[in-house]
């Protein structure tokens, strides 16, 4: 397991979107952009829709990568970025509560999300980091 340092945690909690890569059945990559939270040493994301391809991909092959752009340029003029490689697992329920928590960061402190009051319990993806790369204060 790899530990997220304080710089990595600050970036994730700043509202940086996660670009989540999963693997399709034929080995090709699937990418989607998701809200990401921190739960202890894990990263978590919520999904209302059970039919998402990423959920099927993770159940078949739990290897994932999540990348985040920093909102500043470094001294070379390029943007720092964090890549978390890890192993994902999916649990049922809790998506509306997690999305409401994350909406306060990603939309604003008064955001109400999901917009549908009867949102299904959905699913949560939990990612255990195994390797941390990218360019920034989080990379070894």
């Amino acid at each position, binding site marked *: 397991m790899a530990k997220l340092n304080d710089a990595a945690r600050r970036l994730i909690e700043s509202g940086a*979107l996660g*670009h989540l890569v999963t693997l399709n059945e034929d080995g090709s*990559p699937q990418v989607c*952009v998701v809200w990401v939270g921190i739960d202890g040493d894990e990263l978590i994301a919520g999904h209302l829709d059970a039919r998402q391809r990423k959920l099927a991909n993770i159940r078949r092959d739990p290897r994932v990568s999540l990348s985040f752009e920093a909102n500043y*340029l470094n001294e070379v*003029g390029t943007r720092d970025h964090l890549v978390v490689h890890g192993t994902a697992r999916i649990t049922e329920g809790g998506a509306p509560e997690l999305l409401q928590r994350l909406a306060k960061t*990603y*939309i604003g402190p008064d955001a109400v999300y999901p917009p549908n009051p009867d949102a299904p319990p959905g699913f949560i993806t939990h990612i255990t980091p195994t390797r941390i790369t990218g360019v920034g204060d989080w990379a070894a």
Partner: protein
Amino acid sequence: MWVGLDGDQLVAAHLSGRQRKLANIRRDPRVAVSFESAVTNDFGLREYLVVHGRAEVTEGGAPELLQRLARTYIGPDAVFPPMPDPPAGYLTRITVERIGGNGNWSE
């Protein structure tokens, strides 16, 4: 990474030949590139573009492409790469096969 357009292809430049992505592409050319939009939709979600395609790595031309892209990614007066004698490097050319994401580009 920085990405440019060359006709219907996406192009990116790499000064170092040891990057893992180059070895990965040579072994399996299937790639996906995602871009965040500056636009937030009516639900409060940021739009984004995903381009799925096939990549090919060619030799040379990296400093010239990086200089061109630096004007967009850093600023109109940017000089990049920062070193005086950069290696010729490599280009990745991506032929678009499928467009995804969430925005005016997905059908």
